């Protein structure tokens, strides 16, 4: 009977862990998407000082969430996203706006891949 209780407690803990993972990954990917959108908007408005700050914040946010995300998602996906986001500030100039858009699209695709790796069933 003790084993059955232990099994039920472990199941509850696993369910809690799954819910925690769900919320963490959802929140992180949503925030990353939002910050990428804001960065694109600032760049399109040619407000590159603000865009520089947003790119910096984006990398800082990614660093902050890296350990937590590594509990749920493959580490190489997180690392490649981190590398992509770190290179964004190199394109924050009026001359490089088209390249910035491409890099932002790549960043979005990586965030989506991160999201799908946790949530996709098939």
């Amino acid at each position, binding site marked *: 009977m003790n*084993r*059955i209780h*232990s*099994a*039920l407690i*472990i*199941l509850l803990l*696993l369910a809690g*862990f*799954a819910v925690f*993972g769900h919320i963490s990954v959802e929140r992180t990917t949503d925030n990353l998407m939002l910050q990428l959108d804001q960065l694109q908007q600032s760049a399109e408005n040619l407000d590159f000082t603000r865009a520089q700050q947003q790119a910096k914040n984006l990398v800082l946010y990614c660093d902050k969430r890296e350990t937590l995300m*590594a*509990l*749920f*998602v*493959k*580490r*190489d996906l997180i690392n490649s996203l981190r590398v992509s986001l770190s290179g964004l500030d190199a394109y924050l100039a009026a001359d490089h706006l088209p390249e910035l858009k491409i890099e932002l699209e790549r960043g979005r695709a990586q965030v989506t891949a991160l999201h799908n790796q946790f949530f996709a069933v098939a």
Partner: protein
Amino acid sequence: MLVLVLRTVFIYCIIVFSMRLMGKKQLGELQPSELVSTILISNLASICIESPEIPVAGSVVPVLLIVCMEILVSAVCVRSHRLSAFLSGRPKIIIRRGVIDQAMLKQLRFTADDLMEALRSKDVFELSDVELAIVETNGSISVCKRPGADSIKLDDLPLKKPKDRLPKLPVLILGQTDHDVLECLGLTPDFLTEILRKEHCSAQDILILFCDSSGEFHLVKKEQQ
């Protein structure tokens, strides 16, 4: 490298914990569902050790989930004979009074060689010695020999039999008293204290102490360094 070491130690602890949680059934002959869970656990455990980029949770969560399912399914099987029969099957009689049930042999996909090998492992070398043979759900075979072929037991002889008593069991090992064994023998901790006093030693000096229900004991002291 350090990550690999830490992951391996962590997974080792999780698997030992899981096996203990699943109980002794998992270490003996396995039922089909137990075999499936054991194979799955061994594969899942190695994934996050082999691939450091995969989160540890990728191994730990499925392993613990399988353990929980195994425990809950076995708990339900205790209550439901039908589910138990569905998951583990039923024992099948394969030999009656020395005659092989060939239809059953085919159904179980046993060859005559397999059957004879299983019988020989039970010290049966002639088919005619078997009164009844049953293939158990875990694949082992249980044999009941015909009365003439069975070995003589003490009860068969017209002799005065010794009183029923439990054999000598280890009640104290390396200074640690096994209270369950002590209780099973109907003895009290005071009895042990008395033995230690008589033998002029402390519990820490003892390698192993056997006692039986009548209070007879056999003591092995630790060798002095």
